[in-house]
């Protein structure tokens, strides 16, 4: 499965026309204990890099941007009750939403894992 990252620290995993979206391990660590995730509305249509969801930790509140354009077809409802999963497993069980109907060409503007890791090192 291909995974790409944004400069705002979202990841997107693409498989069979579905783009699963979440926040990176780095972002989850920076946020600290996640206490609330505002999941997007099912069926909501978002443009690439527009606000998809929002997330709150004990320390801060921030927006999660859509790594690709698309329509929300599934949200991770487990996070309503257990938002701490984002800390425990940010790049797997802590996924936020699925987007469908995206243009694969949009992935070209994102970073590979290797590029993202270099990018994060540059932020330190």
């Amino acid at each position, binding site marked *: 499965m291909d995974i790409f990252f944004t400069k705002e620290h979202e990841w997107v995993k693409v498989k069979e026309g579905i783009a699963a979206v979440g926040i990176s391990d780095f972002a989850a660590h920076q946020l*600290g*204990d996640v*206490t*609330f995730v*505002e999941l997007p509305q099912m069926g909501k249509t978002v443009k690439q890099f527009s*606000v998809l969801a*929002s997330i*709150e930790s*004990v*320390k801060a*509140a921030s927006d999660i941007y859509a790594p690709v354009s698309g329509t929300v077809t599934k949200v991770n409802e487990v996070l309503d009750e257990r*938002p*701490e999963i984002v*800390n425990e497993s940010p790049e797997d069980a802590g996924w936020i939403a699925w987007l469908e109907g995206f243009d694969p060409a949009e992935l070209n503007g994102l970073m590979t894992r290797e590029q993202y890791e270099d990018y994060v090192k540059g932020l330190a």
Partner: protein
Amino acid sequence: MESLKNTPLCREHERLKALMAPFGGWNMPIQYEGILAEHRWCREKAALFDICHMGEFLFTGDIVASGLEEVFTFSVTSIPVGRSRYGFLLNEAGGVIDDLIVFRLAEDEAMVVVNAATIDKDFAAIAGRLSGGEFRNISATTGKLDLQGPLSREILAAVVGPEITSIPYFKCIKTPILGADAIVSRTGYTGELGYEVFLPAEKTVELWNRLLEDSRVRPAGLGARDVLRLEVGYSLYGSDIDEDTTPLEAGLEAFVNFDKTFVGKEALLAQRAAGLTRAKVAFQVTSRRSPRHDYEIYCKDERVGTVTSGVFSPMLGCGIGIGFVKPEIATFGTPLTIRHEQVSMEATVVALPFYRGGSLRR
């Protein structure tokens, strides 16, 4: 910009891989393993806090003749030796220069414990009101560790000695710790059974590590401390109270003794006679969203005030906050909306404390 000050424990924090951040001019640990885990450890076991940044002043002399009796909103002479009292140092306008605790150590000896960011202005204000006695800032040579949590009594007794087990709430004793003169006070900022230990700065690292040898003790940072204090409704100086806020507005009149003379009394009496134009309010959010400092408070679409403190409360499972509103809004049960940019959350005015299950008076 002035460089950040370090406490004697900065190398220990480094070793424990704490996340450090500036607080009141100090480089302080915000968290170790994580704010929520540390919060929980304090509510269930015992958490150890580095509070060396706070200030301590020592007064020796005649409390009445020196004028110390009239410096604070409470009477110092009426504090029995071995007890402490919380209250305020006010300006002439009744605004809070600082909230503090005075420990009556002897007939002619009192220790004033103040916030870190306000040490210099507090010292100048108090010294300026004294006309006798000896008044010294002992902050630099005094270390302060807080051990807080339901297990803190037995843990501290094992290290310091059994004499600390019988200290009641808001009492303190002088006792040797690690061979040095120290003060153990049954006070804190968490709503749990707990102690504040004052000892020579050079002994702080040793006591810190001795306490951490007990597996029931874990270090906790200022992040957890903020959640703990807000759950029990304690004010944070600089956020909830400041020089433009009076104790009456902040709902802290219980710590003001109008039967005595103190700086700011005339202003408070005038404010009370004229009626308040704003009042502190505590509110509980209907979701897990956190209100935060400077978020706006609305009631029926009218802007009625501003949030001064807010967090997600792990004990209540929802957001909690305090702020200042028009007085007529500060009635239990009033529905509020908290807003900030596109964020909006529903809340209800409630009574303090938010969390009542602590071991504070156990």
